[in-house]
């Protein structure tokens, strides 16, 4: 009995998030996506604020770069089918994301690789190179937004 309870509990803990994600209503998916991107924007602001100061604090750069990198890996799950503008929920995600998934994913991959290079640059510690990489990373954001995000 005890064994059964434990197994059940373990199973629930392991499966619940998967189920919860699968059952995410479009409105929730959009809300979660907006929140995730807000956090990403906040991380990039922190990184850029450091780079604009005369002496960037490495611990801050590292922290922000890590957050950005984990977002770049998580973003593949942020656009489940049916979470586009057709839902009627307010979103700036264009329908083209799902109709031109190949291009969208290539731009997502570009962001992931730029975020990886950013984390490496931070570890390396050359501020002027980090600045260059931050600009390059920013361009990878913009490249996707220009195509797939509604103008605000």
């Amino acid at each position, binding site marked *: 009995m005890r064994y059964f309870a434990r197994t059940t509990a373990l199973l629930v803990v392991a499966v619940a998030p998967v189920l919860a994600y699968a059952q995410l209503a479009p409105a929730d998916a959009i809300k979660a996506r907006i929140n995730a991107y807000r956090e990403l*924007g906040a991380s990039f*602001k922190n990184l850029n*604020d450091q780079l*604009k100061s005369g002496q960037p604090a490495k611990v801050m750069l590292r922290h922000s770069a890590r957050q950005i990198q984990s977002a770049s890996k998580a973003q593949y799950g942020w656009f489940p089918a049916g979470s586009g503008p057709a839902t009627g929920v307010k979103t700036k995600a264009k329908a083209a994301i799902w109709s031109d998934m190949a291009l969208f994913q290539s731009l997502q991959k570009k962001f992931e690789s730029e975020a990886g290079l950013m984390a490496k640059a931070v570890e390396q510690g050359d501020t002027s190179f980090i600045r260059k990489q931050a600009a390059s990373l920013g361009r990878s954001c*913009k490249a996707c937004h220009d195509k797939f995000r509604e103008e605000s």
Partner: protein
Amino acid sequence: MTGYDLPDVKPVRLRIWDAPTRLFHWTLVLLIAAAWWTAEERMLDWHRLAGYCIAALLLFRLIWGMVGSETARFSSFVHGPMGVAAYARGRRALSPGHNPLGGWSVIALLSLLCIQLVLGTLAVDVDGIESGPFSYLVDFDTGRAAAEWHELIFNILLGFIALHVAAVFFYLFFRRENLIGAMISGSRKWTGDPPAIRFAPLPLAFAVMLGCALLVWIIISWWGRA
């Protein structure tokens, strides 16, 4: 209308606006257009520069409103509600410069611009890439809120500018008073005894403007991060 003009009184040209006030006005028009255009085109480096120029100009105008020529001084054209009401009911303007209603339109435009400048310095874009020089002092959400208010205030500002332009054309077509020409040439048509208007010396305007530009430059380059 012209009902009070006596037939034997010839209108004279009366100098009402000094050069600094006129230069302020038209430079501000150009800079607001430039700020709008550079924001639309996402040329944020230029947009920030336009903002700094507007800040220096605005600071100049606020000081000029206290030490400048008589018609530029706030004390000469800001009237209380009674004065405005009396004017709106059709009493003739007391002063040759801004009338009591126009005075408040000046105050409204200058106040909106002040708010707009503060919001702009704190604003951050949605990607956390472009930002105002003091956005490093606030967190991302505050910076985003500032950016949204920056946009809202701009639209309100546009409304007030439209009102201002409409009023100027109302005076041109219905009151036969050319306020645009006066803001260009500095003088207007005047019937009756011309009042004596005190004008501030030009070098003072130069000194004040230089000081304002210097102050803005020091604040931005010492404490700002853009």
